[in-house]
């Protein structure tokens, strides 16, 4: 198969770039239950896009509408400029890898992979060739003559991938592709899947509820909640600049301080927080006037711990170490502030456990850099 390099440019930042997959105000309701609510989304060629959200958030329904198993109640879906909203599943340049893999039990691995090609007018020799190539890609050539029930879960997953790639679709949909694998295999497969995607250059849309999976694999991801897309961005953007409390909470863990805006300028925001016990300085503006109630958030790994007071007065507070979660590579310190608020701070274990400077019941100073805090207005 043809090799393309992973997209280095970021087409979503280029206003002139033409989206490859475009959803326009797509909604779906099932007898009054709104599963997907006016989703507008543009995905570019070669992207690995993830739809992330808890179960029941509408991500699977969105995927099924792209596949053609559900017809949107409203809105339009374009693939490569063509309106496919009402096209049946068998008539779309889209293939799907099912969560259960959905391998045909009455066909061998080879027959499973060749099934899609046999539906087209392709010569027998070419079908054989492409089936072989596809199985080679997922390293399953040796198992061509086996039946699905003679394969392990990981092997079934590879066959399902080969089967959905063999038709060279414009878009590949993956419904929780790694959910059925155990943890170790899942981590290994994550990278394999990304490598294969880079190799074939096909646009992938993956549905997952596993944030770690979405973060490591995607070029961009969309966080969904109650049928709505809450935020779209690169894993880095979503993690570092969540727009809402929902997204901030959903991805990773985060400390939040309530407070009131006392200074709102173009380049910074100053928030007074009783909860934090200090003034919080944020070096970016937010949609919040003076006096507004906001939350300022900071990721635990951005919070530094010291036994002596830091030079900075803002974004600095103190508390007592209540608990230390030892994870091997890092430790999570639970520090209780004077207000009773528990702040999490993650520190790498640079020295061995016995030699570390901070321990239980110590009074410590917590501080962070202004550019690392986030203002959450919703």
């Amino acid at each position, binding site marked *: 198969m043809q090799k393309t390099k992973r997209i280095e440019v970021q087409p979503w930042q280029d206003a002139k770039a033409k989206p490859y997959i475009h959803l326009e105000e797509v909604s779906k309701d099932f007898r009054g239950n709104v599963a997907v609510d006016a989703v507008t989304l543009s995905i570019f060629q070669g992207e690995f896009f993830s739809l992330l959200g808890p179960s029941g958030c509408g991500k699977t329904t969105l995927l099924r509408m792209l*596949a*053609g*198993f559900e017809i949107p109640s409203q809105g339009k879906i374009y693939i490569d400029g063509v309106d496919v909203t009402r096209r*049946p*599943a*068998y*008539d779309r340049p*889209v*293939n*799907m890898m*099912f969560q*259960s893999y*959905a*391998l*045909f*039990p*009455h066909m061998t691995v080879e027959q499973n992979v060749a*099934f*899609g090609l046999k*539906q*087209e007018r392709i010569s027998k020799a070419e079908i054989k060739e492409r089936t072989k190539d596809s199985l080679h890609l997922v390293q399953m050539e040796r198992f061509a003559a086996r*039946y699905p*029930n003679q394969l392990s879960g990981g092997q079934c997953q590879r066959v399902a991938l080969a*089967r*959905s790639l063999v*038709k060279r679709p414009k878009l590949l949909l993956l419904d929780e592709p790694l959910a059925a694998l155990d943890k170790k295999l899942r981590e290994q497969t994550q990278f394999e899947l990304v490598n294969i995607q880079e190799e074939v250059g096909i646009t992938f849309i993956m549905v997952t509820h596993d944030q770690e999976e979405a973060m490591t694999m995607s070029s961009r991801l969309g966080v969904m909640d109650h049928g709505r897309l809450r935020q779209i961005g690169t894993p880095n953007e979503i993690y570092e600049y969540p727009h809402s409390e929902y997204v901030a909470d959903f991805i990773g863990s985060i400390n939040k301080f309530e407070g009131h805006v006392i200074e709102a300028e173009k380049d910074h925001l100053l928030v007074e927080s009783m909860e934090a016990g200090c003034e919080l300085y944020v070096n970016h503006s937010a949609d919040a006037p003076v006096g507004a109630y906001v939350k300022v958030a900071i990721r635990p790994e951005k919070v530094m711990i010291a036994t002596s007071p830091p030079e900075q007065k803002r974004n600095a507070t103190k508390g007592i170490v209540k608990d230390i979660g030892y994870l091997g590579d890092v430790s999570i310190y639970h520090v209780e502030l004077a207000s009773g608020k528990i702040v999490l701070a993650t520190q790498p274990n640079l020295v061995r456990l016995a030699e570390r400077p901070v321990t239980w019941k110590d009074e410590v100073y917590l501080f962070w850099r202004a550019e690392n805090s986030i203002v959450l207005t919703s």
Partner: protein
Amino acid sequence: MKKAWNKVSSLVTSPFMALVLPYGWSLLFFLIPFFIVLKISFSDLKMGLPPYGPLLEWVEEGVLTIRLNFSNYAFIGTDSLYLLSCLESLLIALLGTIGCLLIGYPMAYGLSKTSPRWRTVLLMLVVLPFWTSFLLRVYAWIGILSPHGFINTLLLKAGIIASPLTLLDTTFATVLGIIYCYLPFMILPLYASLEKIDFTLTEAAYDLGARPFQVFLKVIIPLSFPGIIAGSMLVLIPSVGEFVIPELLGGSQTLMIGKLLWNEFFTNHDWPVASSLAILMLIFLIIPLAIFQQFQERQVRFLDED
């Protein structure tokens, strides 16, 4: 005493008993009667009761002779009537089975696709005819098919035909009767196997570009194959030996083996020939079935393993 009782109760609930009961039943009600019929088929015709001679005879002190009379079988070979009626039975039963399959498959498919609430009601309706006597239901068809029956009256009144059609006392009527009576036996196993199919498999087939007909042909039919076989066997086997339906609906034209057997037993009182005929028919049915079973087992193995 208590120990003995424990032993008995553990034996009753053991898996061994689960095997003994059905096989004991088969032995008692199938194998023993079969050997009795086999025995009669090798005996001589005799006037009196029973109307056949013994196989074993004491000739002199301490010598037991066995007399196997093959002439009954030879006789069946000489008269082509028997072979023809065998073939006709098979043909009628096959037509009936195909008819049941063609009507039953869409019904079973529909059943497997309806919501669970409706399914119970619809399944009830499938077995509802069994609540009326089988004989009565076949008689009802006479009323429908006879020259002055329901269909002919309707067609005459509508002016579609000038004189009544001969519907009753035909092979067609026999096939129709078989389809009608055996349809539930086709639907139930078909439904059972269709209901088990994981419908994401059909979605996967659509997704890979298969049109609805191809999905049906390449995915649904192969996966419901065990049901197709089971249903077909349940219809084919009993309808080959069917007596009531050809007797009531087929008239004198239809020569099915069941009717012939009846004639041999009760009109000609020739039990040995009748028994030979029954044995031949059994062999005739069992051999292709055994071959088919072998083939099917290989086909279905992948579905059962999990």
